[in-house]
């Protein structure tokens, strides 16, 4: 039976991984991911999780160990953050190309320099194009549930791709929240045993990761791209099955008070909650405000996003990373692209906010809203700006 416990979100994630009966966990410590892997090593040490915990000497090796173990047919998990993600990024790209269904938690944290241990999405955006399924969670319960679904999605033979679960460092990883735990029986009834589609086994030798000569590289990439695009239907199916079974639903694009909204804020990850409060206040002020929380980042949920933005006149994108020297943050650049057909009917304003744990207050979310409203009135988007920067 499910039970509700008050627990640090990181530990909740570890417990979810334990319930998924991961075979191999390879990890290198980095703030703010540490509590996740500490607790996993403890679960292994206590015999509560029968897994190999590989305490590697770097994140690069963490992802490399994961590739080796996943390719051998073991359910494989790791977690990292920031510089760790950057260091392993070479292998992150290869894991998806080799179609290895690894699950990784990223406790999102800003990239150096300057060095910062605090939360934003500069690490996540640095590996935007790595070919993994990537989604963001907003609270402890979602973090717990997300991992159980992640293994099921990754290992589905219609998918066979690695899955990255993003949760905001500190803001989420270090919070103590009530989480409704699933029992082992419940998880077992949802998540089947891992059956690799292709594995290293002397009984059936296979050559994995051969040279992609020019005559074949394009075809390998096309197959990978199609796999990621097609994964969306399985993601939705798994999320629905989870919801039907346990009563908690995930949607690729979560919305709040969007139906009659004219202008909406757009957030990813833990900024969803303060943004909701801002929307509530705006509503009290008589504004037709709404909120879009983008959960599924890759594959990008194009149809669902278009639907959510159908009636909007303006969108205030809260970007938690920078794309230097161009037209704004990575999320806004993408959103403009997706909404290109609607460019005459939606004004998109981009706000770089909440870098390295910088607080974004409810008033500031409201400010983004009102600036976007003004832009809608003027019929012209503003240039992207940094929120709260002193100048």
């Amino acid at each position: 039976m499910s039970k509700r416990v008050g627990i640090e979100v990181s530990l909740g994630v570890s417990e979810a991984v334990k319930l998924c009966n991961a075979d191999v966990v390879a990890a290198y410590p980095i703030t703010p991911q540490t509590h996740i892997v500490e607790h996993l090593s403890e679960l292994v040490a206590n015999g509560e999780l029968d897994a190999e915990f590989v305490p590697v000497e770097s994140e690069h090796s963490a992802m490399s160990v994961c590739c080796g173990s996943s390719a051998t047919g073991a359910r494989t998990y790791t977690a990292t953050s920031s510089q760790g993600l950057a260091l392993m990024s070479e292998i992150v790209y290869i894991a998806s190309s080799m179609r290895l269904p690894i699950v990784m938690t990223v406790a999102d944290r800003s990239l150096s320099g300057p060095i910062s241990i605090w939360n934003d999405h500069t690490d996540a955006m640095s590996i935007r194009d790595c070919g993994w399924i990537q989604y963001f969670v907003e609270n402890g319960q979602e973090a717990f549930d997300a991992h159980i679904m992640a293994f099921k999605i990754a290992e589905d033979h219609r998918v066979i791709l690695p899955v990255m679960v993003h949760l905001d460092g500190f803001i989420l990883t270090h919070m103590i929240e009530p989480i409704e735990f699933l029992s082992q029986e419940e998880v077992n009834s949802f998540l089947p045993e891992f059956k690799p589609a292709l594995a290293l086994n002397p009984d059936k030798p296979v050559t994995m990761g051969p040279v992609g000569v020019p005559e074949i590289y394009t075809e390998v990439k096309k197959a990978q791209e199609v796999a990621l695009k097609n994964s969306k239907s399985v993601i939705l199916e798994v999320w629905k099955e989870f919801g039907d079974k346990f009563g908690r639903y995930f949607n690729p694009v979560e919305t709040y008070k969007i139906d009659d909204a004219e202008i909406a804020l757009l957030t990813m990850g833990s900024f969803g909650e303060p943004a909701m409060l801002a929307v509530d206040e705006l509503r009290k002020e008589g504004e037709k405000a709404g909120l879009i929380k983008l959960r599924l980042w890759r594959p990008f949920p194009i149809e669902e996003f278009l639907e959510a933005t159908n009636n909007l006149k303006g969108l205030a994108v809260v970007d938690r990373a920078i794309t230097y020297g161009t037209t704004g943050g990575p999320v806004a650049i993408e959103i403009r692209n997706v909404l290109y057909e609607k460019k005459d009917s939606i004004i998109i304003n981009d706000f770089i906010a909440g870098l390295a744990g910088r607080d974004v207050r409810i008033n500031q979310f409201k400010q983004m809203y009102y600036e976007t409203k003004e832009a809608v009135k003027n019929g012209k988007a503003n240039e992207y700006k940094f929120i709260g920067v002193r100048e």
Partner: protein
Amino acid sequence: MKWPIKNINEIKWQDLELGGAITEPGTSKYYKTGDWRSFRPEIDRSGCIKCYFCYVFCPEGAITIREDGFTEINYDYCKGCGICAKECKGKVIKMVEEEV
């Protein structure tokens, strides 16, 4: 996928194994390296003392030991490096220039 691949330029992305893996072992046997050779080793078995140096030292694995204990060169793959001739204990392997 079915090996051998007759023409790599005819493989569609749908044909590929997961991650572009090669699921048949040892498909390099379909790639014959014998035409790299400009000199061919020839064994004079009358003087062969079956030291097997040619077999052991062949970087291609293109030399086999026959049932009668003599060695044999697979010219489909022998690149003609000449190690077998140079290392042969009985000096019974000669490198002969290939005719063009």
